[in-house]
């Protein structure tokens, strides 16, 4: 039985060892009929015991080759074999094959056992195109727990050490038998050289030489995981079961059984079931519950706050029209624009009004603060710089069309885009234009400045990298649709979403795509946020999901479905990600897992992006309000 995952390399000549041919007589008593299985260290034959001359009494004979180089070691191996065979001969359990005899001839040792008519579970698994039913796996697991309980109750406990599908035989009455009591291991000589393939089912502590009864429970858990998911653990990273939850492969498995298996698979032995008996009881309890009720209800691991009497705003402030702009909070003051034409300044702690500055149009752009100035663009085509302390104007910078891009300040200069297709670089001191760059389409994207390069997207499908000195193009990258979203810089990468549904990671120096991650809809305005310790980037898509994307690979780590488009940009705070959705809610998810922490319903849609400062989430809604929510 050569298993796919355990392919020892460089030692294949031993696999070619000649097998005994049909009719060979051993001990003048056992006549070989056929080979049942060939393993790495042994061969199992079907044989006939000739002592019973009037009936055909079949038995299984396991042959092990003793290839220890040193005669002393060879002798030692034979002694170990005989000792183990003696122990096996004393065992009496319906799930353990009976041992009839053992002997050694030349450099081979033989064990004569009960012949079992049936198939091993690996074969059963491979022959079933569908998933095996939970019911059957439960029945087998109960029987395996029972035989393990029997073995473990010996003093000292007998540890099986090698539970895996190919070592569990199943007869036509659904009864299981444990075969291959690791006895062959006494003949195992150390493998040399690099090999591919791990055992896959063994518990981690077994690899530092510690064998104890709860290790068998781990291997049983691993076997059940394989049976239910059809994912061979020998082909996966070792000990990675927790990263591969059963129900993500086979949602038909009950949460109750999944929990039991995951407990058996804990790395820490003390977190597993205390004994095979305890595990058996847990499975039987589940099994009886499942017969009464249709399904074991999912346990609610956390309480979702916010739906009823849960999360309560610290304060709200009502503007005179929709708030689509995203708040900026600096030195205890919140600044936000509204479609009522005003730039508002509020006390971040209390939500009290401080001042407002009226522009000539709605304010969709989000303000930024530089020294004593707060800077914001307006639908009236003008960029305004207003004093933070009194709301009086410092300077303005007119453009030729609406400003929906949000300004950014770097090195005393303000960078922003306009629907007039230009990216402007103006002095933050007086608003004088230093240079402007002309794209082919409107620029609603907000620029990011890093290492003397300005990155920005445009409706003309391009992402531009401009020299900060003169606005000349360093590179441009063409996506397949307009780019309304804004770039985020992270360790030499520029992350940006496009209306072509992809989140791109571009090499910041060259503009080459490093990876792309396709979402289920256009990425409209959501700006990626990065958590470097988790190695994840977060972005919202018009398909209604918040995505967490692995920064190294561009693969989706998780996604969370809201009930409508997510154009809001995620904000990170203490392991949680915050954002709004067109479904009207503000969401807080666990950044690592994507599990919902809470959600809060506003009266409008939420396209504003949250600012999270000192444990408070500030965000606007089209219900005219600005909300302060506890993070």
């Amino acid at each position, binding site marked *: 039985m050569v298993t*796919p995952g355990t*392919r020892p*390399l*460089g*030692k*294949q*000549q031993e696999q070619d060892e000649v097998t005994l041919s049909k009719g060979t007589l051993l001990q003048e008593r056992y006549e070989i009929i056929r080979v049942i299985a060939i393993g790495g260290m042994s061969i199992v034959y079907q044989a006939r015991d000739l002592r019973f001359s009037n009936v055909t009494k079949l038995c299984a004979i396991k042959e092990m080759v003793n290839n220890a180089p040193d005669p002393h070691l060879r002798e030692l191996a034979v002694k170990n074999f005989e000792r183990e065979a003696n122990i096996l001969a004393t065992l009496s359990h319906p799930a353990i094959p009976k041992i009839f005899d053992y002997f050694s001839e030349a450099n081979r040792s033989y064990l004569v056992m009960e012949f079992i008519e049936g198939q091993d579970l690996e074969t059963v698994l491979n022959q079933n195109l569908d998933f095996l039913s939970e019911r059957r796996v439960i029945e087998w697991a109960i029987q395996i727990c029972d035989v393990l309980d029997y073995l473990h109750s010996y003093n000292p406990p007998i540890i099986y050490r090698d539970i895996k599908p190919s070592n569990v035989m199943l007869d036509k009455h659904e009864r299981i038998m444990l075969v291959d009591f690791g006895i062959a291991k006494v003949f195992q000589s*150390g*493998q*040399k*050289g*690099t*090999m*591919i*393939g*791990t055992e896959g089912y063994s518990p*981690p*502590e077994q*690899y*530092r030489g510690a064998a104890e009864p709860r290790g068998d429970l781990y291997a049983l858990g691993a076997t059940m995981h394989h049976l239910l998911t059809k994912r061979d653990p*020998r*082909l*996966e*990273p*070792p*000990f*990675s079961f927790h990263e591969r939850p059963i129900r993500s492969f086979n949602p038909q498995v009950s949460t109750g059984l999944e929990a039991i298996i995951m407990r058996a698979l804990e*790395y820490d032995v003390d977190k597993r079931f205390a004994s095979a008996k305890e595990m058996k009881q847990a499975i039987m309890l589940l099994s009886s519950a499942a017969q009464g009720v249709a399904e074991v209800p999912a346990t609610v691991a956390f309480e979702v706050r916010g739906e009823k009497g849960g999360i309560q705003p610290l304060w709200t402030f009502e503007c005179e029209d929709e708030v689509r702009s995203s708040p900026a909070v600096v030195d205890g003051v919140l600044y936000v624009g509204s479609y009522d034409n005003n730039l508002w300044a509020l006390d971040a702690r209390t939500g009290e009004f401080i001042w407002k500055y009226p522009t000539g149009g709605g304010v969709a752009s989000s303000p930024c603060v530089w020294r004593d100035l707060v800077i914001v663009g307006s639908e009236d085509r003008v960029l305004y710089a207003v004093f933070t302390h009194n709301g009086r104007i410092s300077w303005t910078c007119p453009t030729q069309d609406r400003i929906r891009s949000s300004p950014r300040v770097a090195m005393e200069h303000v960078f922003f885009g306009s629907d007039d297709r230009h990216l402007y670089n103006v002095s933050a001191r007086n608003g004088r234009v230093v240079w402007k760059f002309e794209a082919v389409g409107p620029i609603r994207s907000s620029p990011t400045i890093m290492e003397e390069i300005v990155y920005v997207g445009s409706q003309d499908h391009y992402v531009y990298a401009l*020299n900060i000195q003169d606005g*000349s*193009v*360093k*590179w*441009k*990258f*063409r*996506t*397949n649709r307009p780019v309304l979203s804004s770039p985020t810089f992270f*360790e*030499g*990468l520029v992350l940006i979403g*496009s209306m*072509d549904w*992809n989140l*791109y*990671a571009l*090499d*910041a*120096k*060259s*503009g*080459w*795509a*490093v*990876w*792309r991650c396709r979402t289920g809809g256009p990425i409209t305005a959501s700006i990626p946020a990065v958590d470097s310790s988790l190695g994840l980037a977060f972005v919202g898509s018009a398909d209604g999901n918040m995505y967490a994307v692995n*920064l*190294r*690979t*561009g693969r989706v780590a998780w996604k969370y479905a809201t009930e409508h488009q997510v154009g809001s940009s995620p904000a990170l705070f203490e392991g949680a990600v915050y954002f709004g959705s067109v479904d009207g809610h503000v969401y807080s998810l666990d950044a690592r897992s994507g599990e919902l922490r809470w959600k809060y319903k506003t009266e409008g849609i939420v396209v504003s992006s949250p600012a999270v400062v000192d444990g408070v989430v500030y965000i606007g809604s089209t219900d005219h309000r600005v909300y302060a929510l506890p993070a």
Partner: protein
Amino acid sequence: MNFLRGLFGRRKEQPVAEVTPPPEEVSVGKGGAFLVGRASHVGKVRGRNEDMLFTLESTILQDEGYLPFGLFIVADGMGGHKGGQLASSLTTRVVADWIVREVYLPSLMGETQSAGQRPINEALIEAVVAANAAVHEAAPEAGTTVTCALLLGANAYIAHVGDSRAYLVNRTNIRRITRDHSLVDRLIELGQISPEEALTHPQRNVLYRAVGQAGTLEVDTYLQSMPSNSYLLLCSDGLWSVVSDQEIVKIISNAPSPQVACQRLIKAANEGGGEDNITAVLVNIRS
């Protein structure tokens, strides 16, 4: 692929102490350049060198200035007879060929900066997956590790399978970038054994993933932005399992050039027993 087997079956074994003189320092544009050293040695115990290396250095002309480009590969073959050598050599050539065709040549034609071009990560993964299929067919009993780094300016894009390693090294520090696909590395992660115990663990050579395996191959990718005047080291386990991290840093920072550093790294591994083949590729990122 049978012709390859024949080709390699006939090939005479050669001593492999490969020595290349250090290239002259070149400085192009603002982008800076790489200095590269490489060396591979059979070691003192094995009869055959199953490690392979590949280096390619270039500068790409962009709209604005030059962009240093480099492709560096280390592969460590395993498997009896000549299978290991075939696996590592085939993998090195398939990956290099793929990246040159899918990434390097399009860049010469200025076709790289658009959504129509394969992202680097996808090209790297596809290259290793192609090598996996080629090895599986040509040498089904053999396998190989592969650690492949594409350097673009100061950014390194790495594809990796197995237990060869990529390190980021500067004058005083060394940090491993890649994660070994070995049983012992998982045991260390789970706190079951210490890194010191791993070096002598009986199953330290067991990989759970290698190029040449049946079925789908999961390829790890890494991004590393390289600080100026840092080093990217690619090496096989014949180096890292013998020469300590501190020793590696010392040798690199004391050597007059990456080439000399590589030769001294090989010497140190041989002095430590040289039980396995030893391979090192060292790239100094200047800017």
